[in-house]
């Protein structure tokens, strides 16, 4: 345990000497190299490798945005928001109801997608502001419970058959209840298709050219499309990162830190802490809504995606990166998404391929798996462990253990304690100071 801690400390020391940009680039290069290697081991062709990297990039970007948003609330301001999934759901469902066509089931308003996205983000912000009202008077763990309950109220409402389809003033709307809701097509299709809204649309001239070029390399059209979208998401991450850095490195951010450290002091120094908390909740929740929209668009909105476990994922990612640091948030998002979230599945694939643990004879119960151990046959146990369902279960066990380990041994995150001073100017040297 402690050897691992030492190594982590050494790693964080090494990182301290580097600039944040270099750190993020090194991390990206490392993860890409790792997953390229794994893909080669699995015998993927170029298309498969690109698709693997696309998926890693996509998930890392989404989690990075979610973690950045949560970091603003918890890392900077100390507001323990356990309702992340609920605010995400508000963003996605509002966007869906505004922008899906009135003819689909469940029906939407059919408004242009930019309006839908903006509406989703604004709705998440407003709901966040409302949810923050208890935050104004409740201490840490009560706030955690209230926000968690709040997100469950949101989820159960979207899931309720009452709102599966309903009408407001004669206009039909719906959430799709427990079956979910088809969301508008991914806007990246505008680049490649004649009629981006239609799934069956022929590619545009540009799309044809690009698809043709990549087809020759063995990368199929959907992978090209998805890769382009993942790259766009990286731009979004950069945008959110810059935005939150600005928020943090300003007098506003300074007040947030002061609220986290001691709200009474912040108040005694003339800061209207309630107002700051409402703003932080609204801004953070808006970004959560945005991240969720970017995550689900082109697919299906389902209440299953917005269970509390999604919130816990974001928390684990934030704790990995270290609460309070924006760079750490991006690192945490990427490390979580690629290693903890996707990693176990790749481990499963590699192991099943190399140890020829056939899917055919996978034991159905733990007894069938453990029984043969008596005759020193570990294959059934391995096969049981590596079956699809059980890897998913073990992944969550692993997540729990990682969470416990981190909070016990490295509560400040993988990168260690980071100094991101809250000011719009450099607080390092005193400019023109004679005394130094």
């Amino acid at each position: 345990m402690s050897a691992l801690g030492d190594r982590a400390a050494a790693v964080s020391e090494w990182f301290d000497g580097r600039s944040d940009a270099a750190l993020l680039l090194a991390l990206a290069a490392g993860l890409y190299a790792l997953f390229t290697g794994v893909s080669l081991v699995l015998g993927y062709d170029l298309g498969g490798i690109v698709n693997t990297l696309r998926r890693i990039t996509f998930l890392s970007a989404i989690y990075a945005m979610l973690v950045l948003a949560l970091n603003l609330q918890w890392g900077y301001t100390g507001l323990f928001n356990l309702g992340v999934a609920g605010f995400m759901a508000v963003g996605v469902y509002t966007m869906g109801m505004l922008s899906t066509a009135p003819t689909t089931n469940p029906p939407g308003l059919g408004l242009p997608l930019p309006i839908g996205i903006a509406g989703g983000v604004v709705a998440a912000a407003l709901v966040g502001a409302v949810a923050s009202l208890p935050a104004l008077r409740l201490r840490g763990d009560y706030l955690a419970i209230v926000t968690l309950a709040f997100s469950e109220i949101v989820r159960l409402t979207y899931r309720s058959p009452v709102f599966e389809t309903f009408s407001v003033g004669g206009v039909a709307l719906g959430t799709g209840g427990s079956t979910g809701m088809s969301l508008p097509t991914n806007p990246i299709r505008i680049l490649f298709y004649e009629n981006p809204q239609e799934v069956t649309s022929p590619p545009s001239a540009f799309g044809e050219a690009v698809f043709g070029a990549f087809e020759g390399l063995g990368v199929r059209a959907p992978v090209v499309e998805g890769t382009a979208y993942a790259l766009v998401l990286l731009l979004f991450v950069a945008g959110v990162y810059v935005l939150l850095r600005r928020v943090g490195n300003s007098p506003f951010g300074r007040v947030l830190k002061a609220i986290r450290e001691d709200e009474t002091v912040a108040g005694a120094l003339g800061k209207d802490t309630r107002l700051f908390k409402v703003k932080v909740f609204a801004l953070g929740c808006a970004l959560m809504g945005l991240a969720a929209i970017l995550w689900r668009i082109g697919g299906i909105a389902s209440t299953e995606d917005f269970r509390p476990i999604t919130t816990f994922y974001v928390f684990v990612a934030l704790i990995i990166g270290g609460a309070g640091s924006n760079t750490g948030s991006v690192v945490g998002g990427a490390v979580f998404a690629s290693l903890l979230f996707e990693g176990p599945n790749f481990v499963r694939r590699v192991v099943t391929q190399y140890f020829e643990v056939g899917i055919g004879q996978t034991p159905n119960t733990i007894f069938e798996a453990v029984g043969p151990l008596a005759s020193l046959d570990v294959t059934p146990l391995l096969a049981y462990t590596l079956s699809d369902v059980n890897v998913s279960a073990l992944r969550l066990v692993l997540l729990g253990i990682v969470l416990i380990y981190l909070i016990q041994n490295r509560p400040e995150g993988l990168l260690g304690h980071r100094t991101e001073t809250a000011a719009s100017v450099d607080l390092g040297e005193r400019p023109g100071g004679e005394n130094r």
Partner: protein
Amino acid sequence: MTTTSPDTDGAAADGSAAATDESTGDPLLQVRDLQKSFGGITAVDGATFDVERGTITGLIGPNGAGKSTTFDLVTGVQTPDSGQVVFDGTDITGWRPHRAANRGLVRTFQIARELDEMTVLENAMLAPRGQVGEKLWRAVLPGARSEVVRQEEQLREQAWETLEFLELDHLAEEYAGGLSGGQRKLLELARVLMIEPEMILLDEPLAGVNPTLEEKLLDRLRALREDGYTFLLVEHDMDVIMNHCEPVIVLHQGEVLIEGSPEEVKNDDRVLEAYLGGEV
């Protein structure tokens, strides 16, 4: 000096009028009939006093006399059960602390409350009033940010000067959590000075400060008083109170026992009695 706001009820208005009659000077802070009890225990029981503009008024009393609670009630950290607080002609009873602070009335805490995970410089720069960059949109929008940066540069210089004066400048980049007890007290003082208020309530500002610095600090308090600051000082060190405060208010069991010059207070038998009684 008609100071009470229109919605005050009869009793308090009477008290205020009486006070105006009595006081000859120019009271900046008027405390009237303040009451506060916690679960049956009365901490402050009808405290009434004035703090004249431009004074360093001492507030003393045995342990449990209600000094810190009075501070809390005056600055809005707690809400009084009844009574009235008037600051600079405005009824600020029950105002939340940030409003009082923005009005120019600030306080330090008895046990220094530092923002541990912020540097000393950040602590100091947090305090000033009217920072444009505290508006979210100004902090973020590219065009609006230049003004923020300009103000931040000024604040940074002001913070350095304040830290220098309090001999904290060599610690500017340290985390406040790493400071010693005396340094914490100084940082608290630095923060309230950065606000540039009209009046500062100091809750035992000298506890843990070394004697040389203590002298300098008291000199500086006097200098600040000359500049127009008003202080209300709670201190256990009687020498400090007797040598530097005028007038002195003695609080006992939540009430004002006597108010007068250090000489008067020193020679009053009731004060001695209160202290002896308090010790037993």
